[in-house]
């Protein structure tokens, strides 16, 4: 059975639990639980104004750089964290 247009959960944490019911002529005949699902791929933000643009100079100090990150998924004040990682 395929069910279309279900929005995924908005982080990589597991859906726990997923419940479903079996119906017969509109009457619940059975409740089912125990299925969980974990998303595997991070979403991509709507857009980013990055700390540094390309074509900056080498061996240079850039101060007061602004980062703007436009989220596509929910981001909660109380539980949200933001990480910047660099790699050469």
């Amino acid at each position, binding site marked *: 059975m395929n069910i279309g247009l279900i929005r995924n959960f908005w982080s990589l944490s597991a859906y726990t639990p997923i419940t479903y019911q079996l119906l017969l002529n509109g009457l619940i005949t059975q409740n089912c639980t125990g299925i969980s699902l974990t998303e595997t791929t991070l979403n991509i933000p709507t857009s980013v104004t990055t700390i540094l643009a390309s074509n900056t100079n080498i061996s240079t100090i850039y101060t007061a750089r602004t980062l703007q990150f436009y989220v596509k998924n929910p*981001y909660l004040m109380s539980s949200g964290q933001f990480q910047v990682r660099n790699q050469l």
Partner: protein
Amino acid sequence: MKIVSSAGVSISYILGTGTIVAQNSTSLTLSGVTTSDYTGPTSKISIISGFTIITPPSSRPFTFTYTTYNVSGGISYGIESTTVTIHCSTGTISTASLTANSYAVNAVTKYVISFNTANGLIAGSYIGITFPAYTAITLASTCLCSNGVVGCTVSSTSFANLTVSGAVVAGTTLTITFNSVTNPNQVMTTASFTIYTYYDSGLDSIVDTLTSGLTLTSIPNQIVSMTVTPASMITYALTSYTIDCTLADPIPTGGNIAITFPTAVTFGSLSLTSTSFTNTTCTLTILSNLVTISSCFTSSVTNLTITLVFANIYNPPSFQTTNSFLMYTYGALGEVDYLTSGVTLTMTIPATSSAFTVTPLSQTVHSTTQYTLSITTTVPHTTGNYFTLSIPSSMAFSGPVCSPVSGIASITCLLSNSTSLVVTFGSTPTASTIVIAVTSIRNYDISSTAVSFQLFFFSTNSYIM
């Protein structure tokens, strides 16, 4: 607070809205960067003025990865992430100069290249200097850097590798001497020498560059020797000329030879009858007195002794020494050798008039009468040229008056002595045969005796013609 990656990118976070919850050498994690819940899809997290970045010491690309997390039960679950690649611009090498001991074409000489670094280097860094086309470093020749921590090795005829064994701070002047470099084989301004500094052995670790403006302009050499030998030394003879010269340099492929003949030398149906090199494809181009031999140097002419024989050249019309022949050799791109002085011609034998008759109006002995002279000249004459007419000593001019009959519009006479008359052309003759009348010449005293008349032609400035 500062985090420094092992590769040299630094990030610090000072004034932003969040607080640091984790950090290591390559990442920084913040919380509290918003004051309300966002639900997307266009909500903006702004971390204003929060970051200070120190970019790496080379142009090797690096990335920033931005990730949002939701923390639940002490576990961070990723939400969104994106990675941005940063390509830093290299520094520009400044105050670059190039000095050669000799700028002459084909010279094997010493080059001194000097420049200032824009950014620092460390032990393990290196510097590459690429020589442009038409210059060549002698393999296994030596080069030396003024800075003791920079060693120099000639890697090929066009590249030198300079290794750095210690710190070279930004703004250091480096002077490198190449002891044996061959200049271009013809006059040109080369493309720029290029200089790249590298932070480490990776080709993507470029630090500073110089790709323009450092050029060398070569100059020509003087031809070693040149002689011009006409087959005849008679004035205005139509003859052949043999030009022998020893060049200083080979004529490069695609080159040509240009010879400017003196203005007193003129051409008939000029042709190049023989050369010391293969001339089957040669093209002769004549522009006034400039003769160019081209299209016959499909490969370099390395024999520096060359001979050219031209046919159908008119000698100078007088004994006056000519101005110098000029000779240049060229490559496809520029001049190679030159000679602009010291090769002149001086004729030694006057031309003989092809016809000369003298007709007295009266042939009575000792009578004074008019003589008609008809002269067919070999050499072309112009206004101001003159001839002397000599008569036997038993004859005499008596207040002579000269008048043109044909072939010339104006003449004047001046008595030099009783047996010599100077006749000057008041206009350029209109024909090769000129006829003039001279009154008042006293006939010879003895009848039936042949007498001799002599003419000598001179140019305006009194050179024999």
